[in-house]
């Protein structure tokens, strides 16, 4: 007891008398600080991200077919969509999984992607015009309909003249097709009064001319990549409680339909001018960027100035007039050209941005379609089925949704939700009634199989033009008109309004299933047990944790941790060498003292413990110091939060700010590492100290 006290006393007094010890202490101090702060940050990020992943689509566990070539990767893999084998019948899997006492819910899923085109403005306007003429053909002409027809017609006419104007101004703005003399001629013809005077004689033929010859000349129909998760929407919504509807309404139970991600809706479907204004506002407000200094903001302003076309095309003559009037008032200008007015209006600076932003939404926005798609619209999605056919279906957009905390995350934000029935069709799985429908159609028209190479052509080649938003399924049916037949459209309407029973939803393919656990702590164990249970039930399933299911993203924190631990490892290797050398020097300095103790009667073991106690105490004192400062930093960060500077971080932070917490585990880990390192690095010097001979006490050199 007295000896230990003596050891402590010697160690403690030596602690601050030697410069070497201060150096070692400094290393230990910063090492601990790093381990505590870095470890806590990564752990917090890990748990934030796990909340993001578990709470958005992954659930705690995912199961998928063991026949799959690739591993499940919910957020997309390195080389696109992973190649998964289907789970033939979800209803057979569900009861097996649900039998486990720790399983709360099982949600069927399938992740896939498709290209959609939003259609260009001319197309959309022509489609509206066509609808009006159809209506007239069915119901006869009323004054209101006439007025409506005239308005849309003049809008189209205005578009044609805009196109001509633009073509003259800048050839780049138009697609290469526009250089074709035939196209130039078509545009010229569409501008003539003669064309418009005779329009009514055969409106459908005139429309067809515009659709086929004029619309394709305007290259503003975007091809958009869309990822979607087909799922039992009802069960999904109940299970993933971070999900909330933003616009519109949830898809009614059992119905086909889609919920677009709010992020996707805002970033990909919004009028670009408005999106750019939003982005500028966000950067200015949130990140304190300035237009006059930030090149990105300048680029956005520039794009807004030079690309007013999407607005010009949207406005019919009446609205154009209103827009001109409003902008003239706002700008105090007499300019008559809307294009010039817009360009001036959108020339925003740090001084006028906030007013202009507010004016844009107050004055211009009411005249515009801010989004290319509205709630209630039908979206036509065309996708390759697994067998290489091109499958195309209409899905109604019911609303937009977001995951709380992940609103700004591009990662979580690209996931759009679709009902499982539609998903299965796009995936190439045919429901019984769909099978019957196709059999009927096949009787009426020849079936043309399209392999992937041809399918590309069929989808995006000349014939199909830019009109992917159509009711055709080009690859499957030779003559797209076949679908326009009474039977086809009847079936379609039927499908859209049909309510599927839970049984129908569950009996069929899924690509994977998300499992939510009652007690997430037992994830590992439950995972093993589910594996056994599914094998026992004769199901060939792979059961993976959310981390594995998330693919590369799931590994991100792990990788960051590896980097941190590697850095810590390097630092401590360096520390080890430095401490080792410093302790050697310290031992050499104290040879006479050690020799004296040995002469007086101290055993080697006493000398060994003296040196070790000293280092451990050193590690302890400075380690505690580092840990205290680390905890201080963490608690400051924990209450202030670390802002997610960019959108990628939203996902990892599971929200706009990360509120890191320090766990006892972090502190203990830091402590163990520090004590271990200091003890290890002292072993050799301590051993040397025990070899000091008592004769060295007699050395008289001072």
């Amino acid at each position, binding site marked *: 007891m*007295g*000896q230990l006290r*003596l050891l402590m*006393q*010697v160690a403690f*007094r*030596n602690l601050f*008398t030697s410069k070497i010890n201060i150096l070692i202490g400094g290393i230990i101090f910063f090492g601990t600080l790093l381990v505590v702060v870095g470890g806590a940050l990564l752990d917090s990020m890990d748990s934030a991200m796990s909340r993001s992943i578990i709470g958005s689509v992954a659930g705690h566990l995912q199961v998928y077919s063991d026949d799959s070539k690739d591993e499940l990767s919910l957020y997309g893999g390195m080389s696109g969509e992973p190649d998964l084998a289907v789970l033939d019948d979800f209803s057979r899997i569900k009861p097996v999984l649900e039998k486990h006492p720790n399983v709360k819910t099982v949600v069927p899923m399938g992740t896939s992607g498709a290209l959609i085109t939003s259609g260009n403005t001319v197309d959309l306007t022509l489609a509206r015009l066509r609808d009006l003429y159809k209506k007239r053909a069915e119901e006869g002409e009323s004054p209101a309909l006439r007025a409506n027809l005239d308005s849309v017609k003049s809008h189209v006419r205005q578009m044609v003249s805009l196109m001509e104007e633009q073509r003259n101004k800048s050839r780049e703005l138009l697609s290469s097709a526009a250089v074709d003399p035939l196209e130039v001629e078509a545009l010229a013809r569409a501008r003539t009064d003669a064309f418009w005077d005779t329009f009514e004689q055969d409106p459908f033929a005139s429309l067809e001319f515009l659709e086929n010859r004029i619309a394709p000349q305007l290259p503003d129909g975007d091809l958009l990549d869309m990822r979607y998760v087909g799922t039992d929407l009802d069960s999904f919504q109940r299970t993933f409680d971070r999900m909330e509807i933003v616009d519109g309404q949830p898809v009614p139970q059992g119905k086909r339909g889609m919920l677009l991600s709010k992020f996707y809706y805002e970033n990909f479907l919004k009028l670009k001018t408005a999106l750019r204004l939003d982005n500028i506002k966000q950067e200015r407000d949130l990140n304190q960027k300035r237009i006059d200094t930030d090149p990105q903001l300048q680029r956005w302003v520039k794009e807004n100035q030079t690309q007013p076309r999407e607005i010009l095309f949207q406005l019919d003559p009446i609205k154009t007039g209103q827009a001109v009037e409003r902008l003239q008032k706002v700008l105090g200008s007499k300019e008559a050209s809307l294009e010039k007015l817009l360009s001036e209006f959108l020339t925003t600076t740090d001084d006028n941005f906030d007013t202009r932003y507010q004016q844009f939404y107050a004055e211009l926005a009411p005249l515009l379609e801010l989004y290319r798609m509205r709630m209630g619209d039908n979206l036509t999605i065309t996708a390759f089925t697994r067998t290489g056919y091109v499958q195309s279906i209409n899905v109604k957009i019911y609303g937009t949704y977001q995951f709380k905390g992940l609103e700004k995350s591009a990662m979580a934000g690209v996931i759009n939700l679709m009902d499982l029935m539609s998903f299965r069709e796009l995936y190439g799985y045919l429901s019984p009634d769909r099978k019957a429908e196709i059999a009927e159609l096949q009787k009426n028209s020849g079936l043309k199989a399209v392999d992937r190479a041809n399918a590309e052509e069929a989808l995006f080649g000349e014939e199909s033009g830019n009109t992917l938003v159509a009711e055709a399924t080009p690859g499957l049916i030779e003559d797209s008109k076949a679908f326009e037949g009474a039977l086809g459209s009847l079936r379609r309407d039927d499908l859209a309004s049909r309510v599927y029973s839970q049984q129908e939803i569950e009996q069929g393919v899924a690509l994977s299933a998300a499992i939510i656990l009652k007690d997430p702590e037992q994830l590992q164990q439950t995972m093993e047990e589910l594996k056994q249970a599914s094998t026992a039930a004769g199901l060939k399933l792979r059961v993976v944790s959310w981390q594995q299911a998330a693919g590369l993203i799931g590994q991100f924190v792990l990788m960051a941790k590896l980097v941190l631990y590697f850095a810590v490892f390097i630092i401590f290797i360096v520390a080890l060498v430095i401490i080792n050398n410093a302790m050697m020097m310290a031992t050499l300095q104290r040879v*006479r*003292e050690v020799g*004296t*103790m*040995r*002469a*007086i*009667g*101290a*055993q*080697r073991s*006493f000398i060994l413990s003296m040196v070790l106690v000293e280092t451990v105490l050193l590690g302890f004192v400075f380690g505690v110091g580092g840990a205290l400062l680390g905890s201080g930093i963490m608690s400051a960060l924990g209450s202030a939060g670390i802002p997610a500077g960019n959108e990628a971080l939203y996902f990892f932070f599971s929200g706009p700010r990360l509120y890191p917490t320090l766990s006892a585990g972090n502190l203990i880990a830091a402590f163990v590492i520090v004590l271990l390192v200091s003890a290890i690095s002292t072993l050799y010097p301590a051993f040397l100290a025990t070899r000091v*001979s*008592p*004769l060295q*006490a*007699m050395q*008289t050199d*001072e």
Partner: protein
Amino acid sequence: MNAAVAQSPIVSITNVTKDYTLGKVVVPALRGVDLQVHPGEFISIAGPSGSGKTTLLNLIGCVDTATSGVVSVAGQDTKQLTERQLTHLRLHTIGFIFQSFNLVSVLSVFQNVEFPLLLQRKLDKNQRKERVNQLLEQVGLAHHAKHRPNELSGGQRQRVAVARALVTRPQLVLADEPTANLDSVTGQHIIDLMKELNQKEGTTFIFSTHDAKVMNHANAVVRLADGKILDRLTPSEAKRALAVGAEGH
């Protein structure tokens, strides 16, 4: 004195040689030494520089081993003992006083004196305190218990060292030139102190010195030359011998 002689010797050295090897050169430091020291003796080892005084004390102090011959301390043949046992022997039987005091600089005077007691683990805290204070009293440093060694003069430091050497009540105290780093008056005081303790406690002292005045206090002076014992004299004989030696030079 006769009673002491009758007792078995505390140190018994028989035909001891000690060679140091420096590279290929063998330096014979002791060449056949016989010496018996009995309990209660106060012996001075004298001899010119390089004669082997330190070497002899190191062998007696069990911090070094003889090349040949037998060194037995407190009845134990040191050749037969392990390094642990030698350390144990040093701790319990021998006290050391060094030429340069060798106090532990980070410990207080009290703690320095207490150190061997802590190593011994024989006494409890109060007993240790009592013993240390008693020793500090005896060396006249009772009021300096809390001081650090660097706050003391050389003489005071050596007195602390004396207290440390004696605190365990060893049978034998070895001191290699304990006064060499002190001025003659202070050195005198230290020897007086040692002598006093020798008389009061009966502790055996063996010390080496160059100083003739210091030798005066000894019961016997063992003269060494060239690694051999010349003779064992009384102080007065030694004084004469030295005087003769001085005349001879």
